[in-house]
C-alpha cells in the first residue's frame, strides 16, 4: 500500500492504495465517480478519459500512485449534475449520444479541443474533428451527431466569448 494525495475535481484527499490499482478504479471506488467508465482496459476506446493536470489521459492506463500530488478532473466537474457545459448542451441538441457509456470519455477528450479551436478562433473541418476523436469509440451514434455537436459547441462558444469570426 502506498500513501498518495490526489486533488479530484477540486477536492484534495489523502488515501492509501495498492500500486497496481488503476486510476479509473480508484476514481470509481474511492471517489464514487461513476462517470469514469472502462470500455477496453487497453487504451483503444477512450471511455476512461479524464484530465490529469488539464490534459486528457486514459485512466485505465494510469496507476493512481503515479498521480500523487496531481490534479484530476472527471466529467462530473465539467457541467455539473445538469450537464450544462456548452459541449454537453450541444451533445443533447445534436443527438451526440445514445446509450451514453462512451459519452463522458468524449466530453473529456473534446472539451479541450473545443477550447483550443475557440482560442484559435477557427472552425475546424470535419476531418480535423474526426481525427481529434479517433481515440474514442462510439458504437451507437455513427459519430455523425458527435461531429455536429463539436461544431455547434465551437460556434456557440465563439459566439458567447464575443463573436470571434469563424468560417462555415
Amino acid at each position, binding site marked *: 500500500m*502506498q500513501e498518495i494525495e490526489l486533488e479530484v475535481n477540486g477536492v484534495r484527499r489523502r488515501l492509501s492504495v*495498492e*500500486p*497496481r490499482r*488503476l486510476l479509473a*478504479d480508484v476514481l470509481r471506488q474511492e471517489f464514487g465517480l461513476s462517470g469514469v467508465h472502462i470500455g477496453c*482496459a*487497453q*487504451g483503444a476506446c*477512450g471511455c476512461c*478519459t479524464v484530465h490529469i493536470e488539464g*490534459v*486528457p*489521459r*486514459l485512466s*485505465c*492506463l*494510469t*496507476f493512481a*500512485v*503515479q498521480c*500523487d500530488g496531481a490534479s484530476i478532473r472527471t466529467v462530473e466537474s465539467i457541467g455539473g449534475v445538469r450537464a450544462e457545459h456548452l459541449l454537453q448542451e450541444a451533445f443533447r441538441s445534436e443527438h451526440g449520444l445514445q446509450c451514453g457509456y462512451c459519452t463522458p470519455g468524449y466530453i473529456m*477528450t473534446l472539451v479541450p479541443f473545443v477550447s483550443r479551436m475557440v482560442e484559435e478562433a477557427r472552425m475546424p473541418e470535419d476531418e480535423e474533428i474526426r*481525427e*481529434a476523436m*479517433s*481515440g474514442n469509440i462510439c458504437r451507437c451514434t455513427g459519430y455523425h451527431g458527435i461531429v455536429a455537436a463539436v461544431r455547434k459547441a465551437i460556434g456557440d462558444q465563439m459566439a458567447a466569448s464575443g463573436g470571434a469570426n469563424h468560417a462555415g
Partner: protein
Amino acid sequence: MRPTPFEYHRAESLDHALALLAEFGEEGRPLGGGQSLVPMMNLRLARPAHLVDINGLPLDFIEVEGDVLRVGALVRHERYLKEKVIGERFAAFHDAVQWIGHPTIRSRGTIGGSIAHADPSAELPAVAMLYGATIIARSANGERRIAADDFFLGAYMTALEAGEMVVAVEFPLPPAHSAGAFMEISERRSDFATVSVGAQITFSGGSITGARIVATGVELQPIRAIPAEEALSGKPLSACEARAAGRAFAEGIDPISDNVASSEYRRSLAAELTSRAVEKACQRALEAGQE
C-alpha cells in the same frame, strides 16, 4: 483484466532510476508513458514485480547540438508536430508521427518507450533506422551507444539488457541537400501500420547521391530496403524510377503473413509505398530547390 501486484518506485534522478533497475534486474521495468506497458499488464501478458516510474526525470528535451538532434527518452509523440526543427529538417519523421495511434496516445507515449517496446509495426523505430540514429542506453555500469540498425532484433526484442534504459535518441541532422517522406497503410487511420516505408535521399545537382529506405510490416522488425537504396543512386530527381526501386526491394523479400495481411499483400505494399515515399521525397527535394 487488471495487473498483478508490483512495487512502484518513483525515480528521483537518473542515477536513482539506474540503481533501481540494476537492483531489480529482470524483475524491474521502466515505466514511461505506459501506453504499451499498462495494456500488457492489464492483460497480464507483462508481470513486472517492480515498476520504476521515470516520468519525473529531466529527459524531455529536444535539442540540436552541432549536427545532431538529441531527443530525450521522455519526449511525447505529439511534440514533434510542433517542433520547428522536425518540420523543417526531418520531414519523414514529421510524416510518420501523424500515424502513431490517436491524439491521447500521442500526448502520453514516449520515444524511449516506443523504441524499447519495439512493436514490429511502430513508427519511431523505423524513423530511428531511417535517419541512422543512435540509441543512447544507460545502466548503472555506464553508457552504451547502439546504432539503430543494430538495435531492433525482432518483435518486442531489442539490444537492451536488463537494468539498461534508453535515455535519448540521437538523430544526425540530414545534410542540406536531402529530403524525405514517410508513407503508411493501416486498416484504420490510427492502427499500427500494415506496411510503412520511410525514404530519405540526399542529392546534388539534380541527382540522387544516396538513399536510405526503411520498411515495417515486412519482417518482425524494421528493415532497410538496400536494393531500392542502390537502385536510386545517381538517378535524376525528376525521373528517379521510384517504381523500379520499389520492385527491386519487393523482389528480395519474403514478408510475414498474418490475419491483417498476407505475405503477397505486404510485398505489394512494400513496393508501392517505397515508390510513393521516394517520389514524394524527390518532389520535396525539387520543391526545396525552387525556393
